[in-house]
């Protein structure tokens, strides 16, 4: 009962993570919906007293991985994902779209770690548990994600500058 309440309260956070993870709003909400349905079915497997948020994000992670796998069997997760469709729903600021686009271009596994750390502000241990990977892997993915994101943003900044100069 208490878990059900807390699960409901976590929905906005699932949505935030999903939006950043998959890019556009409709796909993100599809992911949240599938996650919730799975979570409700599996709630009896959740062990009381353990971290419900980590459990729920694990469910979402698994649902997402399965979706991506079945949607694009030809495109392994480790490769750089092609740019995701952007809707520009967040406004017209060029920087904002650049950031969205750059995040979409991170390898999915790195993106997940970066988002759980920065958006969810999970501890590195929680991220490791949520994604089922060793903490060393969390740290190396985090480091690579940030460096890649920085480079992408710098590159875009440079490109934008060039355009202005021209």
């Amino acid at each position: 009962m208490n878990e059900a309440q807390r699960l409901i309260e976590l929905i906005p956070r699932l949505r935030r993570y999903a939006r950043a993870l998959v890019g556009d709003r409709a796909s993100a909400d599809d992911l949240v919906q599938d996650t919730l349905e799975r979570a409700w079915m599996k709630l009896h497997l959740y062990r009381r007293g353990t971290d419900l948020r980590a459990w729920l994000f694990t469910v979402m992670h698994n649902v997402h991985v399965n979706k991506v796998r079945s949607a694009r069997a030809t495109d392994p997760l480790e490769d750089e994902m092609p740019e995701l469709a952007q809707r520009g729903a967040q406004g017209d600021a060029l920087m904002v779209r650049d950031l969205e686009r750059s995040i979409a271009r991170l390898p999915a596994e790195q993106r997940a770690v970066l988002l759980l750390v920065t958006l969810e502000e999970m501890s590195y241990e929680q991220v490791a548990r949520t994604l089922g990977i060793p903490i060393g892997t969390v740290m190396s993915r985090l480091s690579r994600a940030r460096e890649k994101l920085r480079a992408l943003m710098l590159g875009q900044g440079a490109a934008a500058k060039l355009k202005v100069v021209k």
Partner: protein
Amino acid sequence: MSAAPITEADLQAYADGRLDAERRGEVEAWLAARPDEAERIDAYRRLGEELRGLYDPVLSEALPPALAGAALPLRRRWSRFAAVASWVALGAAVGAIGGWELRDSRTVAAPAADVGALMARRAAVAHVTYSPEVRHPVEVGADQEAHLVAWLSKRVGAPLRAPKLEAVGYSLVGGRLLPGDNGPVAHFMYQTNRGTRITLYVRTEIAGNRETAFRYAREGNVSVFYWVDRKLGYALSSADISKDDLLKVANAVYQQLNP
């Protein structure tokens, strides 16, 4: 005093603000001598801020109906919560527009960051869960009021009182113990002689908030007035009476508890 060498993991944790003071000082000293690294780590920190700036607004967006209905597979075992879920989800959306602007205007978009608002939401969930109950609205009835209050005080860990609200038309039905996010919560139910019910949710351990004014939130069709008084947080909920009438009761509760 040779500090452990600074690793990339230290730098990441520094960017996330997760080092203890001592290690943070060591990393800062290390970065001070390496401007390029300092710039890189600062860029990571800024990217984190930009990410949150970009996606935090999702937290306060209205939930689409399809998503609010995603709790429906609960039907069998959790039928009551299915209703509560889709409903509280919708309520959260309404609250985001209606209730939030009444609170002090902090920039934090995350409702979860606000203990009081979270309490209001939990109180609303508890209200819609228990107030329609015909046979089991409470665990201990008003006929055992002394026992009820002693029991809840013991479990919640603070001396509680069940305010007497006959003057505003409500009599005690009884109460129950609820699980809260920080330990047990006391839940009192009152009703008029026509059966209109209100519930009072009382939790402890509201650190840092010594006292607050009444605040109002709306979750779905439930109105909630909530406030903090010393270490106790109170939330008074109703789905049936007007905001003004509920405020009168909230005032009566407050006066009873602070004679």
